[in-house]
């Protein structure tokens, strides 16, 4: 009994720490959704490309930190590129085509990654030790700590920039009311592009911290997109604190259901939660209800 409880707690803790990375990817959705009411259905591919870029850079002999920075720069460019090529075009035509276009661009990234880096999963070397720390019988690896700290740090950093720099406030203004922001002299297109670039940075960074845990391969994209979507949708696109909470809960539930029902079922509870959550509360647990205007 006692042992079982401990095992479950162990599962929950390591899953929860990993869940913070899902929250970080979901945070990328929140950024772009706030700015331009669109999200990238190929966000997982950006995570994957970020991880591959980091991997290649550290393969070139660069230290880990430099490789991560390089990946983030690549992420910014890729995020900006998706907005410029896919999203803005579709929104100009006033339809939901952006969903398709982001999927299509993601498909292209996938194919490119397959051909450039190959289909096999590759390990991502990291500078910290493989050993684990022990907290009251629950072991936490340095790797898991790094994921949690990285995700938390990145989200805090972006959130601080959003709230306490003029440009961050301007981006928030664009999400609140694009026309009014333009009237204040804020270039809303630039603000939206910036949001996508930052979202790309978050995704690429997430790739470099998830990569060491899951190994890096083209197929890591699809599963991650879905998990991050689940987090974003269940939490509602509007509360970063909600994202963290739901992310941790999802990570923990994944591990526990994998442990109790078998590894094939890992993702099932999260998906059921997503469908039920959407049906009961479309605006998300922490979201605000939207008023229809006529």
């Amino acid at each position, binding site marked *: 009994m006692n042992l079982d409880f401990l095992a479950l707690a162990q599962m929950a803790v390591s899953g929860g720490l990993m869940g913070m990375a899902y929250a970080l990817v979901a945070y990328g959705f929140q950024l772009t959704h706030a700015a331009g009411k669109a999200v990238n259905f190929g966000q997982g591919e950006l995570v994957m490309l970020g991880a591959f870029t980091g991997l290649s850079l550290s393969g070139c002999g660069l230290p880990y930190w430099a490789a991560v920075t390089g990946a983030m720069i690549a992420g910014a460019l890729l995020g900006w590129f998706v907005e410029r090529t896919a999203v803005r075009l579709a929104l100009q035509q006033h339809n939901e085509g952006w969903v398709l276009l982001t999927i299509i661009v993601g498909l292209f990234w996938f194919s490119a990654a397959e051909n450039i880096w190959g289909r096999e999963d590759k390990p991502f070397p990291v500078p910290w030790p493989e050993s684990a720390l022990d907290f009251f019988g629950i072991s936490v690896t340095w790797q898991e700590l790094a994921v949690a700290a990285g995700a938390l740090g990145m989200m805090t950093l972006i959130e601080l920039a959003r709230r306490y*720099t*003029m*440009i961050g*406030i*301007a981006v*928030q*203004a664009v999400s*609140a*009311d694009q*026309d*009014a*922001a*333009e*009237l*204040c*002299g*804020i*270039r*809303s*297109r630039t603000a939206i592009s910036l949001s996508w670039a930052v979202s790309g940075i978050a995704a690429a960074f997430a790739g470099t911290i998830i990569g060491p845990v899951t190994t890096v391969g083209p197929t890591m994209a699809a599963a991650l997109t879905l998990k991050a979507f689940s987090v974003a949708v269940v939490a509602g696109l509007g509360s970063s604190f909600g994202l963290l909470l739901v992310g941790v809960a999802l990570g923990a539930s994944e591990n526990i259901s994998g442990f109790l029902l078998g590894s094939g079922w890992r993702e099932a509870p999260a998906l059921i939660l997503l469908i039920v959550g959407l049906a009961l509360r479309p605006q998300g647990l922490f979201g605000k209800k939207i008023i229809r205007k006529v």
Partner: protein
Amino acid sequence: MLKTENLRAGYSGDDAVRGISIEVAEGSCVALVGANGAGKSTLVKALCGLIEPRGGKVLFGGKNIVGLPASEIARRGISLCPEGRHLFSPLTVEENLLLGAYPRLPSFGPFRRTASGDLRHIYEMFPRLAERRFQQAGSLSGGEQQMLALGRMLMARPRLMILDEPSMGLAPILVKEIFKTISSLRATGMTILLSEQFAKSALLVSDRAYIIERGSVVLEGTSASLAKNPAVMEAYLG
């Protein structure tokens, strides 16, 4: 200072503004008067670049500004207080005001310090806003929201202020207050273009006025002469 030549604009379908030519001289207050749906708001939006005009010219300081994005027009000194206020409701009162001065403020630096002089000025003018500076703009009452919208516009230090229906949705007593503010702004020498459904009040505060009906100017002249014109009143009370 501002001049439009045969401006046409509209949303889908017919033109809502059908060839309007108006002029606003430096330091004057000009009113656009007309019923709901006459095309005032469309005209004002076309001036500010929120919708692209379908024809005609808008000259500001002698330069054609048609086709520029709204943010660029705002940076050149035209500031619009839009119909329905359009505040950034999730942001605080102070953040709303700071955003008014956005082009002048440093993107990453100590923006509050740069803007402190202007902020103090606005808070002196609207003490209610100072009391509520850290509240969300959406939680303000209607009158306070209108003051905030005016304050946000003044933060831009505009060369031309355009007020679109500043009285909309306000109780009569607040409407009077808003008009008092407009009068005092006018006294400081500000150039103002005022679009208003309340004919009487608009004619009282302005120097010149254009009466707009179904997208065209039907009457124009000094406000004093229009106020005496029975045709104007007829348009309002039938």
